[in-house]
């Protein structure tokens, strides 16, 4: 259902409409806002398959794309959708697909082919709880899948993790830019809360400039024919292709790593969290500071490339980190790799579609703080591998998917 003022969207907006849109704040559902942001970013074609909790994204596209004379196809499966995207993207079109966790598993094959053949595309995962069919509650349990490889082979894709609907809209334009600049699939991961919740957002959009692609398939009229492929049975040549990919990934890591910090200047402890977890953590940070605990928040915005250098730097000046996730503990592994034992790394997570509460996080913070204070004086370089871990069980009974407090993470 459209919640936008008709003058803001509806047809291709005129300059006046856009100006009016810029000044307007509307209440919008995450899935619909993401879809509209993709449209405004110039998405030419969308391919999808119904799955909860991302259906509103598909439905928005089903209505809006034909209205604008653009391509919408409801595919027979996620396999169909991702491969339609592959074909459309191979012609240089700006292409997007979306799904939720089990569907992303099916799209993994296509992601690998697109990464291998250098085909740009934006994929949105509105994560739900797994494994298997799991449930439809919000989750962050696809971190490994998103950052460590969905499909086979040595490849990575940039992974953007917004913490608010407004940020998700903003990042959609970046997602297409990254995809086209580096000729790679780009993933946006948001949990079911971001997809389903409604927040006031400004109708402010950005449309990345169109590039002239010297690789796009358009029919070989007046030029040599082009091939988009990942196969190469000649092993030395395939290794060279792989080395070129790895070079590209180093470039992405050098230039495109994003993160946000909050109240870390005087912090002795840091919470590391992304997406909805980061918003819960923000509330917990505020409550902890009321109780005199000096804690701040480190929020990765790109999950790959992971802001490991910044976390390493942070680990030299805080005494401990608490990683909060809606998973059994996935990003915490990357945090530990970045920290290399220089400070304590504790973890608190919820699974099954549950969201940690600020009080749970506060409890975990206190436990970490207590553990560290027993070790006084603080060792400059702790000899023991520090791995304090709070109970992964619920710290507060009946936590459920209660309302998330805190503000959109755009300090």
């Amino acid at each position, binding site marked *: 259902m459209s919640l936008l003022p008709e003058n803001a969207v509806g047809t291709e907006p005129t300059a006046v409409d856009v100006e009016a849109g810029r000044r307007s704040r509307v209440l919008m559902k995450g899935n619909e806002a993401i879809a509209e942001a993709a449209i405004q970013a110039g998405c030419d074609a969308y391919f999808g398959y119904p799955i909860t909790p991302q259906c509103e994204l598909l439905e928005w596209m089903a209505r809006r794309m034909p209205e604008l004379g653009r*391509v919408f196809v409801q595919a027979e*499966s996620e396999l169909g959708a991702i*491969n339609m995207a592959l*074909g459309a993207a*191979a*012609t240089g079109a700006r292409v997007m697909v979306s799904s939720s966790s089990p569907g992303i598993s099916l799209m993994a094959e296509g992601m690998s*082919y697109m990464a291998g053949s250098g085909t740009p595309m934006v994929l949105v995962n509105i994560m739900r709880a797994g494994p298997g069919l799991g449930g439809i509650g919000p989750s962050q349990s696809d971190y490994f899948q998103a950052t460590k490889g969905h499909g086979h082979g040595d490849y990575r894709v940039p992974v953007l993790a917004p913490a608010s609907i407004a940020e998700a809209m903003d990042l959609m334009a970046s997602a297409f830019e990254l995809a086209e600049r580096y000729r790679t699939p780009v993933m946006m991961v948001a949990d079911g809360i971001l997809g389903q919740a409604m927040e006031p957002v400004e109708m402010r959009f950005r449309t990345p400039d169109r590039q002239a692609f010297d690789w796009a*398939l*358009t*029919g070989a009229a007046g030029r040599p024919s082009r091939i988009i492929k990942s196969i190469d049975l000649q092993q030395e040549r395939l290794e060279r292709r792989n080395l070129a990919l790895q070079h590209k990934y180093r470039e992405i890591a050098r230039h495109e790593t994003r993160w946000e910090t909050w109240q870390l200047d005087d912090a002795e402890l840091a919470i590391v969290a992304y997406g909805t977890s980061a918003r819960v953590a923000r509330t917990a940070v505020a409550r902890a500071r009321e109780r005199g605990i000096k804690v701040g928040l480190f929020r990765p915005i790109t999950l790959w490339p992971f802001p490991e250098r910044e976390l390493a730097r942070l680990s030299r000046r805080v005494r401990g980190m608490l990683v909060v996730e809606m998973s059994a503990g996935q990003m915490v592994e990357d945090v530990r790799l970045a920290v290399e034992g220089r400070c304590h790394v504790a973890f608190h997570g919820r699974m099954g579609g549950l969201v940690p509460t600020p009080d749970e996080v506060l409890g975990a913070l206190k436990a970490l703080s207590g553990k560290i204070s027993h070790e006084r004086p603080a060792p400059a370089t702790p000899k023991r591998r520090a791995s304090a871990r709070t109970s992964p069980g619920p710290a507060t009974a009946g936590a459920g998917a209660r309302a998330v407090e805190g503000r959109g993470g755009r300090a």
Partner: protein
Amino acid sequence: MTLQPRTVPRNAPDAAVGRLIYRKPDVLLDRATHYCPGCGHGVIHRLLAEVLTEMDLTARTIAVAPVGCAVFAYDYLNVDFVEAPHGRAPAVATGIRRVRPDTFVLTYQGDGDLAAIGTGEIVHAAARGERITAIFVNNGIYGMTGGQMAPTTLIGQKSTSSPTGRDARLMGYPIRITEMLAQLPGVAYAARGTVADASSIGKLKAMIRRACQAQVGDEGFAIVEALSNCPVGWGMTPAESLEHMKGPVVEAFPLGVIVDRAAEARSAAASRTAPGEGAAPAGGNGSHPRSEGPEA
């Protein structure tokens, strides 16, 4: 083997010398193929190249290569190519044709690719009536991976994964997927030909041409199944494999046009003006009487 006449004066006297008999289409690259001796893929590539050239389609063609022996089709056909994951060519082609309706989109798939792992994609591309032309090469075996049983392997046929022969009770029956697809209203044209002998090759070419016309004329989805041979996978000499095709293979996979909706519509219109002919069978497509050649 191709004849390459140097110059052909347009007004040359109608003599055997200097008269153009056959010219290799430019779109067919001058390169030895990687296919095994006696394999039918090379003939089918050539037919495609001829039809694309004759219909003046090469400059706007985007072809989709499969996974299987024909994965390197782009090494032989000088058109834009994208490689699809195993079985997904019809989905890839859908994406291309939807965002670039001005292009001519061709898929080239084997029987493992199209009739096993890619059944979902081919059925739904056909059901949507995607304006694409599918070339389906059926040699009854997984050639590239070493001759394993395919969905189209004949009952009793030995393969590396059915070493004692295909047993219907354990391994099921061969799929006539082109007949299945012909049931769908989105399918404008479906036919089956073979490369077993020269006259069949001529008919196959006419089928490919008609399937391309169906896309150009915006009629709907079109598929041509080309029965081909795999001498190495079948454990036969090339000559034996051709004889085998004309016998048991054609028996299991009958040749002819399975559906041609434009031709059906024409004959229905004709029968309205000239009464006497019975009405077409209800939902008449799969049970459409089969003719030995294309009707176009």
